[in-house]
């Protein structure tokens, strides 16, 4: 079950002498995480929705998520106290995942009409919302509605 003892010794030496400050800091981080969660939850309330543009609240939520992630990584996962290897293991994956998402945007995230290709007619027939209806059609529809109402 146990790993090689001499390694564990090495592993502990590297951060044991840094004062961890007991469990207090974990509680502090926990409170911070809860507060941050509440911060992003604020956007749920109608008051917030009415007064803050949704782009701003999305940016805020993303920022809060990243902060929370950093707190968890740094304190709970002890990366704050680890040696430099942590960068080797975490940065490539982070970089590649972000790169993957970015490269998907021009094709998939921007597919309704990106200047080179767009939704085909057939696809619009089944796509969620009907296309914009010509004003004449709207008038006709309204006429129909009024006729119906008189019935």
């Amino acid at each position, binding site marked *: 079950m146990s790993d090689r003892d001499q390694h564990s010794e*090495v*592993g502990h030496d590297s951060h044991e002498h840094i004062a961890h400050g007991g469990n207090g800091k974990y509680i502090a981080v926990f409170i911070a995480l809860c507060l941050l969660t509440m911060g992003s939850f604020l956007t*749920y309330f109608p008051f917030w929705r009415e007064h803050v543009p949704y782009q701003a609240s999305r940016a805020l*939520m993303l920022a809060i998520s990243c902060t929370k992630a950093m707190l968890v990584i740094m304190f*709970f996962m002890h990366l704050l106290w680890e040696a430099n290897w942590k960068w080797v293991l975490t940065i490539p994956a982070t970089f590649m995942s972000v790169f993957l998402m970015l490269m*998907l945007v021009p094709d998939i995230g921007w597919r309704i009409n990106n200047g080179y290709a767009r939704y085909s007619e057939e696809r619009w027939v089944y796509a969620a919302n009907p296309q914009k209806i010509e004003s004449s059609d709207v008038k006709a*529809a309204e006429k*129909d509605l009024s006729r119906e109402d008189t019935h």
Partner: protein
Amino acid sequence: MSDSHAPKFSYQPALPIPNGKTCLWLFLSTEIMFFAGLIGTYIVLRFGAVAWPAPHDVHLSEPIGAFNTFVLICSSVTVVLALEAAKLNQASKAKGWLLLTFLLGCVFLGVKLYEYNAKFSHGIYPVRPHGLVYDKADIHYAAAVRKRLNDLKTDLTNTGAAVTPDDQARITVIDDVMRQVDEAEAAIRNEPDSPAGVIKLMELAYQIYPPHDHGTVLQAAEAGAVPPAALVKFAALEQPVAGEAANSQNAEREGLNEKYPWLRLPIMIPGGPMWASTYFLLTGFHALHVLVGLIVFALLLFKTLDRSRANVVENIGLYWHFVDLVWIFLFPLLYLF
């Protein structure tokens, strides 16, 4: 972890950490890529989508999501406290914290199950070849509604037994909806160039399953996606409800499917099928990871968690924090965006 063997030779490790931890961090990087694939898919599909349902349209409750976030954060703390206790050789204390973590994980999964159930009971799930969720109220939707109504009616009338008053009431409801479907289809057939039929269908769809977030319809209308005429009609539908629930802003309007749970008619949620695809994909794989964590916790609870097992606790803790991390991103992306 369990399969490390006694060393025979001396080595020159490059990292000042045990093999188990090295392996676990490497495993976590593969997990980062796995979830990057999933979350990346969600982000690009969502922001490239024509329409996306608001949380309330799909019975997604933000407070429940927030509660689950809280539960996971708590479990992260408890597992880290378990590690600290194990490091100090306080085996029973460590076990206590670990037990608490285990329970919190169970709570998370329980809440998740409750949430899934809320979706399932409303017919929101992807299923082959047709789910109950339709993107738009078109002739295919009408056909699906008609098929469901016919099936229901045959079940009710072909039992051979006498028709109970209860059944009679049901048949009345079915006939009423059927009449609307007929009207709409007739309108589409007779006046293919006029939007009247589509509007009728939409009206029917809103009756079966009203949008739970008034904002969705308005937003769609602003974007020019909903024909204004349909909006006029929708506003008319909205009137009595607004009066009824004047003092409670968040009161949900009741659709036919909610009023008569046995009905289970196909419902229209613009962007719903894609939403269901991504939601169940992301939360499903996250829940699977939680489940794996719980199994390891359960196995660990039978062991003495003294200093010699601190490594194991640390490794499973790292994994658990990663699961927590994924949820930290999933919560706003799925519930609040």
